[in-house]
């Protein structure tokens, strides 16, 4: 049994009021996540990659119970959490934690670092003294004197470390990291990624990384899933996906990641157009209007999920 098992998860957002929808004869909502299945083993890292609007952050919010699933199942440690009660959530929130996207913005500007890192302990009625603060700061490589500082006195990288310390305070089994390096400088990004790797090695926490940055995925994840319009287009071990992408969108995304070399000379695949709206999905394959390899049957047939060894993809004409 995996630590986290998600099966055919669907998440809807309302588009207009129910009455208005009924009068216009249109559906009331749309599917932001349309049937997603994945698993994370204990101690493993999964990368969820996609462009904005692909539904990756929606999945994270649903895993943490901040948004309700429309259908499908999420089992965490064997327990179904889509139907969990408030009492169950109190325990679940100890075992799953979240690192928010904006390193400084996710810290209250009026609390000192010592209060910030021990806040989760206080909420869950555990001892939250100076010793705990020092221990948590040590865990993320910050000296104890940082305890007295306020968030505005921290650099981006230091604020991110405080965020990691907060997320690890309750010794979770799963850490959800939403864009852990967004807004950080290149020289600090490596620092945060090394820290996550190190923490995982030490505590065995499973990590779900949500990002649009492929460079990051390559260096910290074991498996990766690529999302487009609320569906997975490809999933598999990171090495294999980078080595040989099977879905044209994956290929385009990998190629849109420019190498810092003016003579790289690599032929890039340029996608035309933009991501369509999930309110108005294209017929057939979601990706066919932008796909450089689209063929005549792509607009007609919705491709099934094809499993091939450890990986899977959703394409009629895989590469």
């Amino acid at each position: 049994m995996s630590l986290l098992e998600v099966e055919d998860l669907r998440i809807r957002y309302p588009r207009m009021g129910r009455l208005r929808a009924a009068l216009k004869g249109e559906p009331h909502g749309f599917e932001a996540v349309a049937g997603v299945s994945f698993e994370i083993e204990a101690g493993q890292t999964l990368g969820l990659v996609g462009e904005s609007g692909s539904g990756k952050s929606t999945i994270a919010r649903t895993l943490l119970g901040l948004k309700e699933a429309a259908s499908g199942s999420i089992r965490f440690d064997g327990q179904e959490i889509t139907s969990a009660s408030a009492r169950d959530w109190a325990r679940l929130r100890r075992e799953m934690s979240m690192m928010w996207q904006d390193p400084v913005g996710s810290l209250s500007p009026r609390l000192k670092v010592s209060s910030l890192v021990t806040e989760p302990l206080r909420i869950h009625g555990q001892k939250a003294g100076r010793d705990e603060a020092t221990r948590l700061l040590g865990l993320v490589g910050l000296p104890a004197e940082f305890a007295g500082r306020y968030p505005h006195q921290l650099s981006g990288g230091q604020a991110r470390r405080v965020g990691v310390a907060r997320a690890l305070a309750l010794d979770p089994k799963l850490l959800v990291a939403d864009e852990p390096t967004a807004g950080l400088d290149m020289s600090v990004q490596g620092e945060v990624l090394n820290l996550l790797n190190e923490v995982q090695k030490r505590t065995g926490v499973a990590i779900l990384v949500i990002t649009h940055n492929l460079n990051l995925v390559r260096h910290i994840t074991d498996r990766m899933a690529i999302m487009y319009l609320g569906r997975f287009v490809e999933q598999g071990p990171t090495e294999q996906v980078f080595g040989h992408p099977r879905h044209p969108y994956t290929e385009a995304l990998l190629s849109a990641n420019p190498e810092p070399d003016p003579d790289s000379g690599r032929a890039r695949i340029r996608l035309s157009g933009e991501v369509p709206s999930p309110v108005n999905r294209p017929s057939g394959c979601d990706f066919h209007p932008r796909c450089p390899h689209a063929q005549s049957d792509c607009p007609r047939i919705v491709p099934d999920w094809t499993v091939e060894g450890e990986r899977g993809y959703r394409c009629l004409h895989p590469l």
Partner: protein
Amino acid sequence: MPETNETAQPETLVSVRDLSLDFDTLSGPLHALRNVTLALPKGRITGLVGESGCGKSTLAYSLIGLLPGNASIVGGEIAMDGLDLAHLRASEWRKLRGTRIAMIFQDPMTSLNPVTTVGQQMLDIQYRDRSSRAEKRAKAVEFLEQVQIPDPESKLDVYPHQLSGGMRQRVCIAMALLTQPDLLIADEPTTALDATLEMQIVDLLKELQGKFGCSVLFVSHHLGTVAELCDDVAVMYAGEVVERGTARQIFHDPAHPYTQALFECDPGRIREATRELPTIPGTLPDLRRPPRGCAFRARCPHAWPRCADEHPPLYLRDEGHDARCHLLDETEAVA
């Protein structure tokens, strides 16, 4: 070898010489730019690279006179066709902005007016033009076409929030080019966009620059896009330009230890998957009290006593390629 004009000396459009700029803060002046010297050649794309707080945006804003009130230029000049942009009056700036110098900002949602249609904003920007409303409208459509917006006629009547992020940035580019400026400043124009859109915008900028022949200053912290787009590159650190050269020289033969360290940190350059990524230890120096010697000394793996005492000048590495590092001092190498 792709077509280049690297050997020919291109004419200079804007020449920044020894520019120093301070910000007034409660705890004293912050020396945000220190003796910056940089030439923007005509008809080429210059990339300005560096991490946050290095002064790259401050330099870009000083080229279009959009500095905040607590900034003051304390030395040097910015020469452009006999004008000194460092010491212009507000009325003189108004004649330059939007005619000879234009800018694209990071976030297209906040740089467009949310309560006015795209078309109205594109007409407003042509207020100096004496042509009729219909002619201005036709010109707006023409430029929306230039930036490859489908069905441009109908887009004139939409509000910015009805467009996607990529489309909005295209509108901003169209507006910036509408007046056919000599210098286009682009401050992180692709940072707010997704990877596939980012490449579209980079391609578009490259194509339009070729078409209009303007000079472009492209400010970015993303080394990949800079390598893809720019002809020349300047690297900034702690308020100084520490290295200048053509994109090939900088990316293939970085001379300054900071540039080298920055490249090493870029996960895009590390081909093998690794769990231990390189970083630059230490932090930026406090620009209220910039160090006496080399600004990068405290974090530099090659630092030696001379770096602490003597501020390095720009040493020539190659034709058109120089860097602020004592390691490049040839008299030292001989001794």
